[in-house]
């Protein structure tokens, strides 16, 4: 589904990603962990081309997204993204947040987009908030709306960039629950998170990144209980 080959990314002289190679299968849930500054968020943002790629290739469903001939906007429609700080559109109601991209980009009629939006809100348990403005929602509710907004474009892949890091502890669970449900339905997901419980329970594979490299990748049980690499051991001993 996603093939990343020799991916390099630099900000000026600072090389954040140094030769990343990674294949993600359809319906796979990959959880990326690692210390801050390890490049995990940058990796995620490269998959969506929110960061330009310095070197290497990323193929999504066989198409090279770094090839200028391919339409970035078209590809982004297939890849949903959920941000740490939600980034809901504050001047639009919840349902309008969900309807904007389908109507403007996919040219879906407003009625169809509204029905689809309400269905998604029901799925994340926020049907009654359809006409509320984002400012009136709690953090957990905002993030669930953000997930629904990404799903409204019917993406094939969902990227989560520390979706629970900005949330109060008591609402983290409701967001993770929605993500678990999504994983169960067979969505291909790449999740950058510090929620080790989620990684263990939902992840098909956990990737540990440090210093711009993928240091170790394995099934969660193995990676958490039997880390091979020294740096992985050091990181896990600090957080577990």
């Amino acid at each position, binding site marked *: 589904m996603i093939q990343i080959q020799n991916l390099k990314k630099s900000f000026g002289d600072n090389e954040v990603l140094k030769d990343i190679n990674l294949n993600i299968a359809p319906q796979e849930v990959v959880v990326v962990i690692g210390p801050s500054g390890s490049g995990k968020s940058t990796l995620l943002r490269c998959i969506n081309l929110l960061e330009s790629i310095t070197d290497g290739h990323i193929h999504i469903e066989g198409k090279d997204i770094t090839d200028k001939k391919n339409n970035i906007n078209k590809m*982004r429609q297939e890849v*949903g993204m959920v941000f740490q700080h939600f980034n809901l559109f504050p*001047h639009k109601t919840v349902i309008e947040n969900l309807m904007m991209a389908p109507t403007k980009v996919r040219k879906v009629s407003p009625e169809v987009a509204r029905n689809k939006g309400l269905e998604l809100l029901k799925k994340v348990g926020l049907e009654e908030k359809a006409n509320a403005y984002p400012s009136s929602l709690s953090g957990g509710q905002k993030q669930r709306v953000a997930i629904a907004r990404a799903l409204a474009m019917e993406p094939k892949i969902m990227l989560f960039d520390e979706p629970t890091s900005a949330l109060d502890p008591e609402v983290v669970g409701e967001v993770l629950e929605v993500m678990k449900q999504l994983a169960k339905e067979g969505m291909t997901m790449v999740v950058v998170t510090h929620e080790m419980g989620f990684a263990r329970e939902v992840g098909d594979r956990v990737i540990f990144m440090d210093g711009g490299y993928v240091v170790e990748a394995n099934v969660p049980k193995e990676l958490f209980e039997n880390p091979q690499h020294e740096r992985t051991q050091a990181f896990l001993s600090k957080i577990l």
Partner: protein
Amino acid sequence: MDFRFDIIAEYAPFLLKGTLLTIGLSIAGILIGTVLGLLIGLGKMMKNKLLAFPFTLYITFFRGTPLFVQILLVHFGVVPLFLGETNAIYAAIIALSLNSAAYIAEIFRAGIESIDKGQMEAARSLGMTHVQAMWNVILPQAFKRMIPPLGNEFIVLIKESSLAAVITAPEIMYWGRAMAGQYYKVWEPYLTAALIYLVLTISLSFLLNRLERRLKTE
């Protein structure tokens, strides 16, 4: 000092016509200046420095030279160049629009740059083009923040339109000066003109305050 209300009454019809022209000049300047200002502001924000340079130059010139000079240049230089002869009202509208566009461009730029970049990223991640994201996500939010500085600029524009009197555009100050010239009076014409400008600017700030409050509660 005997204050002659009779000459104010005599000039009232002219001052009324002048007021209408002042309002017309201001509205034209605001509308054209806003459209031009948006384009110039977006132009200055282009990543390609070479393409952005002409817009920077434009802003530097029109903010860095007196409006008075610009009005004279447009009236005696630019308009005759294109029309063969000059026209005070056209020249006033053009000079006011070009001048306010430079200020409005900077207001737009500041407004747009004040919006969290996550908004653009979220819109782009949903597959919107840069233009779609700008139009549907960034500008509506930026616009709310731009109302107070835009209001300032509009008020400045109303007052500065008085400079059009020197190129004989028959607005408020043109008639004020005519009245002063005819009767050798100072207080009557200029206090009357000042009062009319006050009424115009106070009405505008009242409208802008209401607009701002309405948008805030939405």
